[in-house]
């Protein structure tokens, strides 16, 4: 009934996996219980104010204070505490089957993602996490600079990324779909524009995606795209960005090997197309002030189109 109000790709009350689900259930129970308690207290208050003399005398007895203020809360809170602890225990339990291992590094203001194989990075992407439905995922969370917080509410609670430690978040999607996450610890300037996508796919689609991501960048055959690639490298983009299979191998900024396959750019700020890519390259500070990429406004219109077409082709 309330679903229209609480549904969405970034809603803790529209869960897509068991961790978020059990928290959502806890939430509804607490809302209901809290609502009932609130109503009772307000009714008692109303009674005390409105009902005259003898019929409200019972309410002025000290035992009302003892029962209402001590006995009842002790019973209710004991039950709630046990329930809450049991949910926490379930959520933090080790997953039964071997999880998919991903490491996410928080950066100002984007997400560096490594898919791991045998504990070592197999390939890198950014702001974009694809996972198979039904398999647990183990995310190792760290930061390159300040404290960030990894939060994809439809799937799990949040966990901070703190310098000097690695926090591990386990989650599992039960439902196909695209879930949005956002940084949930103020990390400076463009904190508000630091989001990411989590895409839950069927197993075979996920395998296809992973194989595609592991490959080096597609070498363009079309001359316009080849021009774009040349301009990309000539403009110095490779000193910050990596495109595997080319000479671009910088690690300061996001890996762009398969940037064309992502739903959004600038960490969820803009949809991903040639127009937004062009706007970003030439004036990223206007779109996301304080982000770490300097503007590249020296490219001519045609050159910019070539570069963005090249990037778009990197699927």
């Amino acid at each position, binding site marked *: 009934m309330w679903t229209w109000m609480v549904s969405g790709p970034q809603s803790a009350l529209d869960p897509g996996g068991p961790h978020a689900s059990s*928290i959502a259930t806890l939430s509804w129970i607490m809302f209901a219980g809290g609502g009932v308690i609130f109503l009772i*207290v307000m009714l008692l208050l109303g009674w005390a104010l409105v009902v005259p003399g003898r019929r409200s005398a019972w309410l002025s007895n*000290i035992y009302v204070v003892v029962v209402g*203020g*001590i006995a009842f809360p002790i019973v209710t809170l004991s039950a709630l505490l046990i329930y809450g602890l049991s949910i926490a225990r379930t959520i933090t339990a080790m997953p039964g089957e071997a999880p998919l291992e991903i490491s996410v590094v928080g950066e100002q203001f984007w997400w560096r993602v490594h898919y791991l194989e045998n504990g070592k990075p197999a390939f890198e992407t950014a702001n974009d996490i694809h996972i198979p439905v039904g398999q647990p995922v183990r995310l190792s969370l760290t930061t390159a600079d*300040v404290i960030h917080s990894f939060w994809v509410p439809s799937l799990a609670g949040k966990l901070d990324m703190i310098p000097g430690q690695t926090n591990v978040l386990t989650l599992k999607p039960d439902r196909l779909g695209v879930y949005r996450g956002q*940084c949930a610890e*103020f990390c400076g300037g463009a904190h508000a524009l630091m989001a990411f996508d989590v895409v839950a796919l069927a197993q075979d689609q996920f395998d296809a995606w992973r194989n595609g991501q592991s490959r080096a960048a597609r070498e363009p055959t079309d001359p316009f795209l080849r021009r774009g690639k040349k301009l990309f490298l000539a403009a110095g983009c490779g000193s910050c960005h990596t495109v595997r299979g080319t000479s671009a191998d910088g690690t300061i900024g996001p890996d762009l090997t398969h940037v064309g396959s992502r739903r959004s750019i600038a960490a969820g700020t803009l949809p991903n197309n040639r127009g937004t890519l062009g706007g970003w390259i030439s004036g990223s500070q206007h779109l996301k*002030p304080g982000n770490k990429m300097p503007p590249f406004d020296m490219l001519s219109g045609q050159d910019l189109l070539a570069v963005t077409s090249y990037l778009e082709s990197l699927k």
Partner: protein
Amino acid sequence: MTDKMQHDPAMPLPNGSPRPEGEFERLKATWEPPRGISFVTVVNNTYVGLFYIGTAFLFFVLAGILAMIMRTQLAAPQGTLVSQETYNQLFTMHGTVMMFLFAVPAVEALGVYLLPNMQAARDLPFPRLSAYAFWAYFFGGLAFFCTIFVGLAPDAGWFIYPPLSSSEYSPGINIDFWLLGIGFIEISAIAGAIEIIVGVLKTRAPGMSLDKMPVYSWAMLVFAGLIVFAFPAIILGTALLELERAFGWPFFIAEKGGSPLLWQHLFWFFGHPEVYIIFLPAAGMVSMIVPTIAQAPLVAYRLVVLAIIATGFISFGVWVHHMFTTGIPQLSLSFFSAASMAVSVPSGIQVFAWIATMASGRVRLTTPALFIIGFLFIFTLGGLTGVMVGMVPFDWQAHDTYFIVAHFHYVLIGGMVFPLFAAFYYWIPQASRTRLSERVGRWVFGLMFAGVNITFFPMHITGLIGMPRRVYTYPAGFGWDALNFVSTLGAFIIAAGVALFIFDLLRRFRAGEGNAGNVWGGGTLEWLPSGNYANRSIPRVTTRYPLWEQPGLADDVAAGRFYLPDNPTGGRETIVTSPLHAEPQYVVQMPGPSWATLLAAFFTAAFFLLLTVKLVTPALACGVIAVAMVLWWLWDTDPGPTHPPVDIGGGIRLPVYATGPVSHAWWAMVVLMLVGGTLFACLLFSYVFLWVTNPSFWPAADALPPIGWPVLAAAFYAASSIAIATASRLLGRGPGRSVAAFNLVLFAAMPLLIAAFTTDLWAHWQTGLRAPKSGYAAAVYMIVGLQGFYTGVLSIMLAYTLARSLTGRLNAVRRSTFDNTMLLWHFGVAQGLAGLAIVTLFPRLVGSG
């Protein structure tokens, strides 16, 4: 004699009437505030209290305006009213100003105003100290607020987590403004806490034993206790962060053996009690207002008192609930979840006690009553969502989202602002010749109540459907748009209510001689007829509601038939009573107004602010002047027994001066030592915490200074304490003593203390250890550095004491100044020895790495 007076109300009154000619005029004249421009030096608690409340309210309005700008920006997605940078400063300042410049000062201000009146004391025990606390807050707070006009306001959130707030990621001086700007607030709060503890425990009306004390006094006692044990954590934290930013001492830098979590622990160990510092006085006020509006005594007084005490204690055990998402192990988190459940029980006790009290009487829906009802509604709702976020898994979703924003605004606005407005409407007739308008008051209430719910209730939903905190804008299409718009509408409704209140306040509030009287029929002592001198005579009370249950009390007090209807020493006096049974012990002579106090406050604020903008020499100059002003202010105090014991009435003869553990000055110093001890404990915690998290930075035994050094330093420390103890004995010898010997021994303590500190410092310096090297090094130098600070302070105190002795103002009887120096000296030495022990023995015991 005194027992009989407690149990036998038929006993004759202490003093006869009519009173002698001119006695009342002399009393009034002594308590007159200064005229002309010197008015600003007034120290009467009523005037200082009103200035204080007014300034706090001003900050409420200013921070509220910041919030209006924020809400307008957020009314629609992709708003463009303010830039990202401005918004980040706005939300940081809104939180910082509300918490530090409005909420705590407001409740402290009400205490300054109300407490002496409610206990029939003529003033707080240290009138100049409360004036100093106010003016430091006034100058410093206004200067701090102005940073937003020049774009230099801090912008990392009100809890400025490192590394974002460290010099690497926040290179400007914005964060330094926060750190040093909050410095004088910390001083104000500690000063206020000392006043209030001593005031509640030592200056009550005779017969007001602890079980008859107003609930508000209990609440303020616990409030002050919370300040004493919680503020040192933030004082230490801000010092550490400033040292890291200015000098590279890496307390919070993980790569160098520090820890960002150390800041969070220190901040929240302060931060959670902080909200109870804000709430408990408000709850105390509610417990005073509810009996009056119901015209019935508070039901379950003992339960309410113990609920306040329990809340205070348990509030120290919940701080990690602000850190549930940091990756701390689940079992540890669960301890804090359990304590968060426990802390809600006492609040429930109070709510039911208030409801029961209202049921036992008949409540007339006056404006104070409406605000109390509003408080119960909003605060209960906020308390329930508080229990929810105390559940760890739920908090993993709700933390850092608008759900939390909703929760804390409900408990803070419900739990503090509504009682504050109730208090305004309730007590303004005591402070002003005209009361506020009931008709306008209903509108103010209606607008504020509706506005708060319309603004903040939707935020519960907004947060859970994904909107995080501290975002200057948000994308369309997630279902956040309409909710944000509604919240913004509500904000304007609140603003309308507050504006209406201000309009009525300006129209009606008239302070000065005379007040509107006991318009609500209150039963406690603040409703006695009063003037600048407080009450004409100080009553003996036998019940919790003296005005209801002691017939003719008001008349007897006003006619001077109770204690001390005059001022026998010719100055400002009140009766100091025992803490348990409030039996009179002595009459305290209190100082009057002085420019020194105001100037000391001004130069203290200037010191901190100049240091922030890195004008070090002018800052130091201002610091020196501030200290000089403080010494000038103190010079009038400690008058000694200038008068033989006085007859206060009823056959009770009291000395006019006291020293030793019975004196208010001794108690104040004990409270100060508790503050210092807590600060030191937090520092030791920091040292051990850094070892637990970064053990590889701890040294091997051969890198430590050879053990001879700390032994030598310890010997110097002990010797300086022995010198002070010897001086104390010499002083106590009375007129036969050798003044010269005393002066010499006293003086000798100073070079011994300085030698101790220097030895300690050199011991580490000569090993090549330097503070910026690692978290370990920084912690060691902080321990040593704190001793340096105490060495400086104690040296100044010793020099001052010596000056008193040399000018004949110190002797066997008149020795308060010496005693206070002695107490803090021994404390400083004990702390020095403890610091030496831990730095010397801990690494040797745990091994390295």
